[in-house]
């Protein structure tokens, strides 16, 4: 939590295994509504789990599910870096 003072970074700037809380989403409202359904909302914890073999899309774990997003979307989702355990490292 000591990193909370840092500026939010785009999802695509995270390293694999890194995570954080979603700070804001700079996408049109229709996109945001769409993302809301899978739990991508400000405040939600999200972790970058892996990249697809060809580099894009990338897989993120949010709200207990693994979801793939293209960089074109992930670029506009900003997170406050923090340490969140990766799915499977928990408990």
């Amino acid at each position, binding site marked *: 939590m000591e990193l909370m003072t840092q500026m939010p970074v785009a999802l695509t700037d995270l390293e694999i295994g890194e995570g954080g809380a979603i700070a804001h989403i700079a*996408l*049109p409202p*229709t*996109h945001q*509504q*769409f*993302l*809301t*359904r*899978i*739990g991508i*909302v400000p405040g939600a914890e999200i972790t970058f789990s*892996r990249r*697809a*073999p*060809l*580099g*894009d*899309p990338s*897989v993120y774990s949010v*709200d*207990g*599910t*693994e*979801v*793939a*997003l*293209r960089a*074109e*979307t992930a670029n506009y989702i900003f997170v406050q870096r923090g340490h969140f355990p990766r*799915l*499977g490292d*928990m*408990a």
Partner: protein
Amino acid sequence: MTAVRTQPLVACPGKSSEIPKREIHTVALIGPPNSGKSTLFNRLTRLRQKVGNYPGITVEQRVGLLTAGGPEIKLIDLPGVYSLTPYSEDERVAVDVLTGKMDGLPRPDAILLVLDVTNLSRQLVLAAPVIALGLPILVLLNMADVFTKGGGSLDVLKLAAELGAPVAMVSATQGSGLDAVERFLREAHDRRPGALLPILQDLPQCRKWANQLSHRVDYQRPLPSVWTRRLDDIFLHKLWGPLIFVIVVGAVFQTVFGLGQPMSTAFQDLLTSLGQQAAPFISNSLLRSLLLDGLWKGVSSVLVFLPQILLLFLFIGILEDSGYLARAALIADRTMRSVGLNGKAFIPLLSAYACAVPAIMATRTIENKRDRIATILIAPFMTCSARLPIYTLLIAAFIPDRPVVGVLLGARACVMLSLYVLGFLVAIATAKLLKSSILKSAAVPFMLELPEYRCPTLQSVGLRLLDRSRVFLRQAGTVILAVSLLVWVLTHLPLNHGHSPELEHSAIAYLGHGIEPLIRPLGFNWKIGVGLLTSVIAREVIVGTLGTIYGTDPATQSMTLQNALRQDLTPAGAMALLVFFAFAMQCASTLAVVRRETNSWKWPMIQFAYMTAVAYASALGVNAVLSRLWR
């Protein structure tokens, strides 16, 4: 905290016996996508269901019957939705059905709400607006087996109390806990006042409520499966991932094509011989011809697709249920994006190399409607197996069998290969065209959920196979039957003293002569014209038609079909015919399936017109260029 429960469990709040009773006739089944709703629906109705479309839209309507030990109850399967805020067509349908505003459907007397218990805090978001409708409701926590095995736990009684509705742990794939549904439906219920619920149109509010609620019921998420991570380390590995992808895809393709083709041929032979066996029992020759050459042939021409459809859906079922299909889509996405489509279009397009019909049915996995329609529209450009008979015939007749690249590639194989490439290129060009014009994607980002790997069960894959083949037979069967009948009538009119005319004097030959001026620039004569007309049913029909025409013509009667064609058609015309068949939409089954899947005549008509135009223009060009070159 409540211990992990291994037994299916029903928790009921309050004393239901005191509530005035009310019989249940119609029940709606609702749940988020990936909650296992369809499997549950198939289980509950044992496939006694009617599949159609809601009026005017592409959303599929499924209504089934529950009969176990009592009067029949109608079960309506609603599309998978995340909320009742009507953002999408699916959600609008769900709201309309639940509020009794959907034409032709009575308002449900009760609701079955299916939630994936392994992901309860997120799935509960849908519970608030659904419960607030105030109808008697049973909450089914699905995938209880996986949940328990993974060490998940929750206080079911507390959840039931909080929701003000009975809650049952079930497993649709295993079929456990489903007796709760029967009990719920058999007991009469009355509307109860809804529990205290948040503002319902507000998704963030529902989300907050769902999160708090899952805390209050001591919800413990099961441990994510170690296996899923391990398998993904392999299947999504930089190197192994694409390699395994290619192997899996190759194996599916090879089996559907390599095994499905002979199966279809054998099935065709069986159907033909069945028809021949019946022939002696019909004395009237005209009636015999109508029943056997018209109806039975039409029906068989649909039936022969069945082996391939079943094979393809067997594989898709296994891939989808195991969780690999989502990974395949993830790997393919990068490449598919370059033509404006997404990764989910890959498997359907690949299937189209065997047959466009199951491929178009397989596009259901694409949620984005515009992407789905674009995929449907380009699928028939892929070289399907029905093109092979005419390809083989013309290539054997007109292309000399000589090597081009050493012994590896002969001229004939070269032509065949280029036809495959040609179809593929035009498909890609069409996709780009569509995606940059009429089907420019709606503002929806690409999103793909990667479910945990699971072992597919025989029952769930089997039920899906049965379901798909019934849909196919009923829908495509009716249209193709009508078209076959029409073609039969045209080949048997006008009647001459109660006898049908020779083919060259028939109405269809008249039509063939009629379109001759139109197709002469392509290098085709009226006989080919008749073939083009009859093969509107199915591409391979042209071979049979040409066989009949040249077989009845005294000038060519003694020749093989290849020789007859060589005499009657210029090489340039033959090449033009090949190209025509590479692009033209000569398949009534495909048109019927497109109509069904898009729920409108608009798309199949656009598709037919576009493909015919492309075919005509290309054949015109090929004939013009080659006839000058080869003069």
